[in-house]
């Protein structure tokens, strides 16, 4: 199969959906000639014109309002917030408007929109440009949360998200835009709420999402050399969450490490542990281990920065701890 990078997979999803449905459009900062901060949209302005590739001022609330209002009136916008950190400026529109409109109006209205954004550390851009804030959205009823780790997943899930009739927060990771992977030429979609076992194994389950899937696979590789056989479960979507695949994996391995780049306290990883506690407590041979980011503002200095997030090494260590 041909290989393309994560960034181009995003672009392909947009192109296919924009071609399929004239109601789909893009809105965000620097998405015109500039093609988006990570260039996922390069060429799209030329292709679709400024009516469907709407380049905005630095007005995060109005960008999301621009998506919500269009969604309420029949369109399917994909709004981009350049860094997930900047969502701090627009949580009202996401949480009090987009997430709730359908429910609080008793289905009088609905909001089919995608909020595309990206998070994560690793580029030395410090505390306000490196956060992993998915836990905020995960906690809010009415939002779906998608965090793909591969080109294949990002394409298939973005297409599904665009077609979803409710708001989807689609979170990419700044360190994986250039990673390549197999993506078929033919059209495909991936349903929300279906995990993917990125590597099968029988000794320990590693539950990881987004960039941490790549770290988990590296760790599994290394552990394999020592004869430890890890299964890597990538939920791909956090809401809805495929609990069944996770529980089945735990039934097999009886041990699980949960990895998230986000600051540990109040992270999605903690919630996964609570879910395991509810649904798989009896299958566990050891307490679940969390491998998360430190409870610290991400620093600029590269060594400090790297010390704040999980790595292959920290995952390896955690797996060994519970073996």
């Amino acid at each position: 199969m041909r290989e393309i990078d994560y960034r181009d997979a995003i672009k392909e999803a947009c192109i296919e959906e924009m071609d399929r449905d004239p109601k789909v459009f893009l809105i965000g900062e620097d998405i015109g000639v500039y093609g988006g901060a990570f260039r996922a949209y390069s060429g799209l302005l030329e292709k679709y014109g400024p009516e469907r590739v709407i380049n905005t001022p630095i007005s995060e609330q109005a960008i999301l309002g621009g998506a919500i209002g269009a969604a309420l009136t029949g369109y399917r916008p994909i709004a981009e917030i350049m860094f997930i950190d900047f969502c701090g400026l627009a949580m009202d529109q996401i949480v009090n408007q987009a997430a709730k409109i359908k429910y609080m109006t008793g289905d009088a209205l609905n909001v089919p929109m995608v909020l595309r954004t990206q998070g994560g550390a690793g580029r030395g851009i410090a505390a306000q440009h490196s956060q992993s804030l998915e836990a905020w959205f995960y906690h809010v009823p009415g939002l779906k949360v998608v965090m793909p780790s591969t080109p294949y997943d990002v394409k298939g899930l973005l297409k599904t998200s665009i077609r979803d009739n409710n708001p989807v927060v689609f979170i990419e990771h700044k360190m994986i835009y250039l990673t390549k992977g197999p993506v078929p030429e033919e059209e495909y979609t991936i349903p929300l709420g279906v995990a993917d076992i990125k590597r099968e194994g029988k000794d320990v389950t590693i539950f990881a999402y987004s960039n941490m899937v790549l770290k988990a696979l590296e760790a599994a590789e290394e552990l394999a050399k020592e004869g430890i056989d890890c299964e890597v479960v990538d939920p791909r979507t956090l809401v809805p969450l495929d609990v069944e695949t996770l529980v089945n994996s735990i039934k097999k391995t009886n041990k699980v490490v949960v990895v998230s780049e986000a600051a540990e306290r109040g992270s999605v990883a903690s919630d996964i542990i609570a879910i395991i506690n509810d649904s798989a407590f009896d299958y566990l041979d050891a307490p679940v281990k969390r491998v998360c980011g430190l409870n610290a503002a991400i620093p600029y200095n590269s060594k400090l920065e790297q010390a704040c997030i999980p790595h292959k090494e920290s995952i390896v260590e955690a797996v060994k701890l519970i073996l």
Partner: protein
Amino acid sequence: MENISKEKQIEMLKKIIEIRMFEEKTVQLYQQSKIWGYLHPYIGEEAVAVGICSALNKDDYIISTHRGHGHSIAKGADLGKMMAELFGKVTGYCKGRGGSMHIADTELGMLGANGIVGGGVPISVGAGLSCKMEGKSKVVVCFFGDGAANNGVFHESVNISAIFKLPVIYVCENNMYAISMSSRESVAGNNIAGRANSYGILGYKVDGSKVFEVYETAVKAVEHARKGNGPSLIEAQTYRFFGHHPNDPASYRDKAEVEKERKERDCVINTKEALLKAKIIKQDEIDTIEKEIEKMIDHAVDFAEKSQEPDLKKFLTEVTS
């Protein structure tokens, strides 16, 4: 006023009375604990919603606020469904889930009341984009208060609507207060309409107690928008006749001010008088109208009272995710 057909004038008077009587009833029901939660009466401000919405087509959109009953009714809402919503009944506009602050309806083009001050304002950008993309000359009216005019959302939204020439009419209902905060003290420059200049768009200041003045301004702004000339900003000077909500004695306001406003700028009284004076209507016709509206409201209350509570099981399967 001369350019407005007699029928239209009477229509507007009717709507004003309808809103007034609906609101008086809701306050009464609130005091009887049949309605609970937050309720923000529109009493005193009716001419704004009616003047503006009378300039709209059915398929135009409005975006409302926490003080939204008047907007909905002016756009044609069903009083029964509104009252049922306030009663928390399943027959209400939001199946009892929203209450006063969240009434919405696609068919009405009512894109939602809002519990967040200014929360609907950015949504105008999207509705405006949609109208522009669709190319059917629809327009969007975005209502908000003097308090909301100080929130950042106002600035972002009007700026973007202006650069893209979106067909949005921003209608600021300056009722002189945001809860206890006077607009004289909170709006720097004390000229909301004047803020239009910042964005290179048209700004109008109108007496919000004069329904025909409001209407005529709205007609201009709507035409401007339909032609693709972009947004405008109307500041309607009005007054909240009572407290922020039924339990607020509004003791932070000067009594003389309140009395003066209620006496001189009551749009129900003034519109009636204007129509009587112009011999467009007779007193007994007004009496008939009022009786009919009273009946409508009684029906609405009756409908609400007799409606079912939402089914808990159904609710749970519908909302949890």
